[in-house]
């Protein structure tokens, strides 16, 4: 999640650089851990570091092309076989394994279909929806 938070924050504000400490503070992430995550994102060319006063990190990928799965796969293997080999030795294990694989396949399909650009749009919609809800609550309070 840490990598997704960092890259999403930078993609959402691609016109400026953001310091690691600002990202760490916003998402309540250890700065040490975040530094390692940011290095991985730099190596993947999704972000770049900006040196000097006011430096930090800036998004450098293609937000319309990079998917959530692309980011997650930088940090963990996806699509491996669920369940240990012992559980596949009996029919119950095999049946459960096939159901868990079905769930995994849907999850992977969703993560592969959502780009960073789409995620940023979803966040904006939720923020606007939140503001609309807040406005509606205010209106009803006034009406009451």
């Amino acid at each position, binding site marked *: 999640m840490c990598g997704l938070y960092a890259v999403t924050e930078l993609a959402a504000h691609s016109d400026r650089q953001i310091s690691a400490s600002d990202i760490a503070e916003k998402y309540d992430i250890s700065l040490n851990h975040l530094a390692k995550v940011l290095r991985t994102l730099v190596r993947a060319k999704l972000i770049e570091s900006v040196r000097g006063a006011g430096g930090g990190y800036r998004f450098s990928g293609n937000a319309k092309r990079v998917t959530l799965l692309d980011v997650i796969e930088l940090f963990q293997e996806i699509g491996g076989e669920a369940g240990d080999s012992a559980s596949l030795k009996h029919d119950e294990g095999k049946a459960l394994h096939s159901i868990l694989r079905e769930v995994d*396949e*849907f999850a992977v399909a969703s993560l592969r279909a*959502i780009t960073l650009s789409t995620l940023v749009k979803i966040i904006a919609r939720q923020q606007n929806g939140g503001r609309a809800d807040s406005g509606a609550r205010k209106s009803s309070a006034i009406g009451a």
Partner: protein
Amino acid sequence: MGEAERSVSQAPKGDIEIRAVEARDVPEIVKLDERSTGVSKCKYWRELYSYFTQARGDGRAFFVAEQQGRVVGFIAGEIRAFEFGSEPCGWVFGLDVDPDLRVHNVGTQLFERICASFKRAGVDKVRTILDRDNHLVLAFFRSQGMMAGRFIQLEKDLD
């Protein structure tokens, strides 16, 4: 805006016009679809054209994107009611855009046009269904704000 009316926008190789499908468009739709799927389906598209134009405006919508007299995209769908226990909603059955013009908002314009058509016809939800390995089109629909819905598709191999 009525379905017979036209909208025009800018694209790299010239203006894009979104308009209701006409009989002369069918061969180009067949070609566009064949380029994407590798399968030529003349009969299927001719029949679909007939079906959609028989009751145009009755919840059925079939639009094309035209650039310099050439069809560069299309979208087709209709309002269906009560199947699968669903309330009436718009279904998008087909969408394709010339690969050379992708990422230039042609698909977005087509999708917005059919959504407006569904909205005018009185529904407030649009659905579609597609293969989970169709990453490109899945990502497109996601970018348009579509999310996983309440319905789950199930299937079984028949013995």
